[in-house]
């Protein structure tokens, strides 16, 4: 294959050749190449098919703005990525890539029929076509749209890579390491400011890498770049990040930088993260984002081989690649002339320079003449030819009066275009900074800043090297000074710089029927100039509407190359000035960003905190099956060999009811409440009365929100007159503490009470069953466990197994129960000791499922399962827990609101299915009349439902409208295929007289 590499040119490392594949064919490139430059070096221009019309497409640009050259890359199993821009993808040995949007092959694609049917696919095609008949939607239209939709192929396997993130703070963040950004970073760095300089490319330099004519301070651009980078490397306060894209600019100078760490490596180090998201907080920001060249809009401007002139210059100077053997140039801006000159000087025959402008600077014409390049000034381009690659351009003279003359054909194998340059204001726009329309330059420029930031260089409309350096240096100093440093800017002498000008255009004038022209504005979404004009004719006037109707600027490139061309055409069609039509809003991320980069460390085991109790290790070693409860993982049940969940739970339940069970209750929230007003505080927070609770006694407390609904519950013990040990639900621990702090700090700051979370200070082992006391007695010191001294609902401090304990006598099972609190690090040893000592009593560890069954048999509610934030204590059959004599407590006033007193409120009841073997589904809806017409009136739902080993049948709790008054009635639960019947009962299924609590 012919090589298009030019000896001696470019910054690629010729000592490091690499092999890569594109669509199964193997090619050679060099380290330093992008996929685009390496393909061009091999003469490959056709790299993909367009999204809508499946037109053959080539490489338009040399940067991250690329709309066309999107490829799929594969780095091994699970490492397929679609839509990677070939212009930023660095080649490495073994890289495998494929083109997109075609079948069966890139060169022969069935979907290209869409191109012939383009009249059907005009603006608003989807809205107009898929309207009727309605019955077509499911069977015809949706499958069609789903089949056609989507750019590239989604990966199908989980991503095996890891990702990193890092917070960083600096005085000055400089985005863009072109000449302006470098000058800013150098100046701010020299002064001593903490500087971060980032650039999305593999190496810093920006335009210096591609535009090699001018020099700085007597050095060539590249020499100066080396000097600048060497100096930055000596500054300990400066950090340079390449391959790092500033993706979003948020409030108070918070900027997200996505750093690509390993994508360019053939064999990344084991365990290295693929990307890192930097979250930078900068005192000052300098945006030196540069500018993006505009395509010209003419028929056939999307043919492979038609590319931006600046890109061709980059491929030549930076990568040593000529984009063709006989390129032609078509332009309305001087800069494209420099591309032609560079190519000619590198020995490439330039077919012609076609300039839309009738008048062009004399020095350009002279240089063209000296290089033997034909110049056609005041000419237009009206078409291109060539099936999979441009073969010729059709050009016509345009008279001063605008009359397009007869066509002439120029043979060429590349057509380099330039419609001028658009400052990149994306990040500035993220901040809601105001954009001002610059009529002369036909561009939006940064106006008033919303953040502490500065825009410099081409990104600020200050084109040219001297301007960029001066503005960058001034901004670097200014930013450092604003960040608290003192300094003056250095001066940069620029030699050899040619001042450049240009004009902007809409569609280029043509002698052909404009309504048949395929003059593309948005290459990625296949939007043409006439689509935009059609949208305006159909009544769309705002650019935001035109954008959504035509989809211009809505592709993954966010219209980097198309927005201003689209706006110019829309503005002309609407007959209003561009700023009145407006610019669509740029949103983060600046370029497509992986989900992995956003997730950072939070995947796999670090996705979320997994809290484990001090006893968790024992449970794991003893075969526990776990369930997640808020952030905790809790032992759900302990299956023995051959047992399923049902059998294990039945065995565990039986052990508790007949002898002794042990349960890890460490996750329960615990709050230590201390102070002379502790009892008064609890009295105000909880519904129950607390002032008269004796030391050494416990009480079950119910906590409401101010709206009167149950928020939490738990047992509270009084250790001393001024010290309470409060327990909360597992999931409610943090919420309850925050709520209590809120009342203490803001409503009752006069109360002398302090709160401390002790959830994790204590490991809690619940011992439940008739033999609990028998087990404990020989192990406990300093606490009299006799019935008289330590009755149900008691608390005492002493020692167990030689370590301190807070021992509670309480029950969430209906059996005699104790909760042994020991300092957390002793939790496992005490558990093991109790487990060992309990063997002769048949002690059985049980999990949360058994705990649920046992408490449901007793009608004990679980807040958040049997309640849902709309139940009052009375609704939940907890009216007894309200201190009737108390003047106030949180939520009390709400309990007398009219809605709260209605008799048809949903109330907690028991349900017994008519078939005792049927276990209802939790969440199932309840109706009174199963024969009513649809939709049925639902009067409640099942909140808890289990098989009860003690009763030998199913039981359930439910909330039902006016349920308590319906006791004995039959309700119905419609399920798929059948309707179940159940009768309403009280909520206590087992031992209603609580005899077993002291048995």
């Amino acid at each position: 294959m012919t090589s298009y590499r030019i000896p001696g040119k470019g910054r690629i490392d010729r000592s490091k050749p690499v092999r890569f594949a594109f669509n199964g064919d193997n090619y050679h490139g060099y380290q330093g190449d992008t996929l685009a430059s390496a393909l061009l070096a091999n003469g490959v221009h056709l790299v993909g098919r367009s999204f809508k019309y499946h037109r053959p497409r080539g490489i338009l640009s040399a940067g991250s703005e690329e709309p066309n050259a999107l490829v799929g890359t594969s780095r091994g199993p699970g490492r397929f990525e679609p839509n990677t821009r070939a212009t930023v993808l660095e080649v490495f040995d073994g890289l495998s890539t494929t083109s997109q949007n075609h079948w069966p092959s890139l060169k022969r694609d069935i979907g290209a029929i869409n191109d012939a049917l383009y009249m059907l696919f005009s603006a608003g095609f989807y809205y107009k076509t898929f309207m009727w008949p309605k019955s077509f939607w499911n069977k015809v239209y949706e499958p069609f749209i789903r089949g056609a939709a989507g750019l590239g192929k989604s990966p199908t396997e989980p991503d095996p890579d890891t990702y990193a993130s890092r917070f960083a703070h600096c005085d000055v963040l400089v985005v863009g390491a072109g000449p302006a950004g470098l000058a800013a970073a150098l100046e701010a760095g020299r002064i001593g400011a903490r500087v971060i300089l980032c650039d999305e490319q593999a190496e810093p330099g920006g335009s210096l890498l591609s535009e090699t004519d001018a020099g700085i301070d007597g050095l060539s651009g590249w020499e100066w770049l080396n000097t600048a980078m060497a100096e930055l490397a000596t500054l300990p306060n400066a950090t340079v990040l390449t391959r790092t894209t500033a993706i979003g600019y948020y409030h108070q100078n918070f900027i997200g930088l996505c750093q690509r760490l390993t994508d360019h490596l053939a064999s990344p180090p084991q365990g290295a993260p693929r990307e890192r998201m930097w979250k930078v907080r900068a005192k000052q920001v300098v945006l030196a984002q540069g500018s993006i060249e505009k395509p010209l809009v003419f028929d056939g401007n999307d043919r492979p081989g038609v590319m931006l002139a600046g890109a061709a210059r980059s491929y030549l100077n930076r990568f040593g690649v000529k984009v063709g053997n006989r390129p032609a140039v078509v332009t309305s801006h001087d800069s494209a002339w420099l591309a032609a000159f560079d190519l000619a000087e590198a020995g490439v025959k330039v077919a012609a320079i076609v300039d839309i402008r009738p008048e062009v600077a004399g020095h350009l014409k002279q240089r063209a003449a000296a290089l033997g390049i034909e110049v056609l000034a005041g000419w237009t381009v009206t078409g291109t030819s060539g099936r999979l690659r441009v073969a010729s351009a059709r050009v016509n003279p345009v008279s001063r009066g605008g009359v397009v003359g007869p066509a002439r054909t120029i043979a060429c194998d590349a057509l380099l275009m330039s419609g001028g340059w658009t400052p990149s204001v994306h990040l500035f726009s993220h901040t809601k900074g105001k954009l001002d329309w610059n009529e002369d330059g036909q561009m939006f420029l940064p106006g008033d800043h919303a953040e502490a930031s500065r825009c410099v260089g081409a990104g600020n409309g200050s084109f040219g090297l001297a301007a960029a350096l001066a503005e960058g240096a001034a901004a670097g100093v200014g930013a450092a000074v604003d960040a608290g440093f003192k300094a003056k800017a250095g001066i940069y002498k620029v030699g050899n710089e040619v001042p450049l000008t240009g004009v902007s255009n809409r569609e280029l004038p043509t002698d052909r029927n404009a309504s048949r022209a395929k003059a593309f504005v948005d290459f990625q979404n296949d939007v043409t100039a006439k689509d935009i004009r059609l949208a305006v004719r159909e009544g769309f006037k705002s650019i935001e509407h035109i954008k959504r109707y035509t989809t211009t600027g809505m592709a993954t490139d966010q219209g980097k190359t198309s927005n201003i061309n689209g706006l110019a055409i829309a503005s002309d069609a609407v007959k209003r000035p561009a700023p009145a039509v407006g610019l669509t809003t740029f949103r983060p991320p600046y370029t497509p960003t992986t989900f992995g980069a956003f997730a950072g460390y939070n995947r796999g085991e670090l996705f979320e905190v997994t809290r484990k109790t001090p006893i968790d290790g024992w449970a794991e070693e003893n075969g526990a099956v776990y369930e997640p409860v808020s952030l905790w993982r809790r032992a759900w049940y302990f299956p023995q060999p051959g047992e399923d969940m049902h059998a294990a739970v039945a065995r565990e339940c039986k052990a508790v009811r007949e002898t002794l069970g042990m349960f890890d209750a460490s996750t329960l929230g615990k709050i230590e409440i201390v102070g002379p007003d502790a009892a008064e505080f609890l009295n105000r927070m909880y519904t129950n009365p607390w002032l008269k609770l004796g030391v050494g006694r416990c009480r079950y407390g119910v906590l409401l929100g101010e709206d009167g609904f149950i928020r939490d519950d738990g047992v509270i013990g009084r250790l001393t007159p001024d010290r309470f040990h409060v327990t909360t639900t597992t999931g409610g621990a943090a919420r309850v503490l925050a709520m209590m702090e809120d009342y203490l700090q803001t409503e009752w700051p006069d109360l002398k009470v302090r709160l401390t979370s002790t959830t994790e200070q204590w490991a809690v082992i619940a011992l439940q069953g008739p033999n609990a006391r028998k087990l404990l007695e020989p192990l406990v010191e300093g606490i009299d466990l006799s019935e008289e001294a330590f009755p149900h609902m008691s608390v005492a401090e002493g020692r167990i197994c030689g370590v301190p304990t807070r021992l509670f006598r309480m029950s969430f099972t209906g059996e005699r129960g104790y909760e042994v609190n020991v300092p957390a690090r002793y939790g496992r040893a005490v558990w093991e000791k109790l487990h060992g000592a309990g063997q002769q009593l048949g002690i059985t560890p049980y999990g949360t499922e058994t705990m649920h069954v046992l408490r449901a048999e007793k009608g004990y509610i679980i807040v958040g399962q049997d309640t849902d934030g709309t139940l009052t204590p009375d609704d939940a059959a907890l009216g007894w827990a309200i201190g009737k004599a108390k003047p106030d407590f949180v939520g009390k006033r709400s309990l007398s609101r009219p809605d709260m007193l209605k008799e048809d409120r949903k109330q907690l009841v028991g349900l017994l299915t008519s078939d005792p073997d049927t276990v209802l589904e939790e969440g199932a809806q309840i109706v009174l009349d199963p024969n009513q017409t649809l939709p049925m009136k639902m009067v409640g739902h099942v909140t808890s439902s289990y098989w009860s080993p003690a009763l030998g049948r199913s039981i359930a709790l439910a909330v039902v409208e006016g349920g308590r008054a319906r006791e004995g009635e039959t309700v119905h639960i419609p399920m798929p295929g059948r309707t179940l019947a159940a009768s309403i009962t009280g909520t206590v299924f087992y031992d209603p007289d609580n005899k077993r609590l002291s048995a």
Partner: protein
Amino acid sequence: MMHEHHPLVGREIAIRKAMPLIVRVAADTARFSLRIDPAEIEKASKAFGLNLPAKIGETAISGEKRAICLGPDEWYLTAPLAEQEAVEQAFADLYATAVHSLVDIGHREVGIEIEGSDAVLALQSALAFDIEAMPVGSGCRTIFDKAQIVLLREAENRFRIEVWRSFADHVWGLLQAAGREIELDI
């Protein structure tokens, strides 16, 4: 005596390059949460045997005792295990003249030491505030990824994290990931 179980015991992350990073589990210590009216700070200082810092973020050290001011009325106290009961007794005696809350949180927390010239870098993986600007000898409560911690800067390149024991694994996992990046110099 019963065996004590630590969530991280015996584990260490040691990146031994020219720029080392060592992350290890700190030795046990007695820990207390003290909540008291700042007007009573002198009495509390006397009871603890150390002048309590008055400003949030400040720490004070005397011998093996340390106090960090975490909030306007909140101090995080650490002392040798042997002095646990003496501290409790001293504050119990103080209660009659200055009401307060002293709560034993010795088992609630796990201490993690992060040391080395890349210690800051390792912590930047999940700490959102400007840790480079954190004064040596200061301490604060903050959040490390999704885990609330108390962070101390004991020296230029030495930090200590105090974290609730069930969050310690998560913190450790992040430090391990950050340590890997430092090891690979990536």
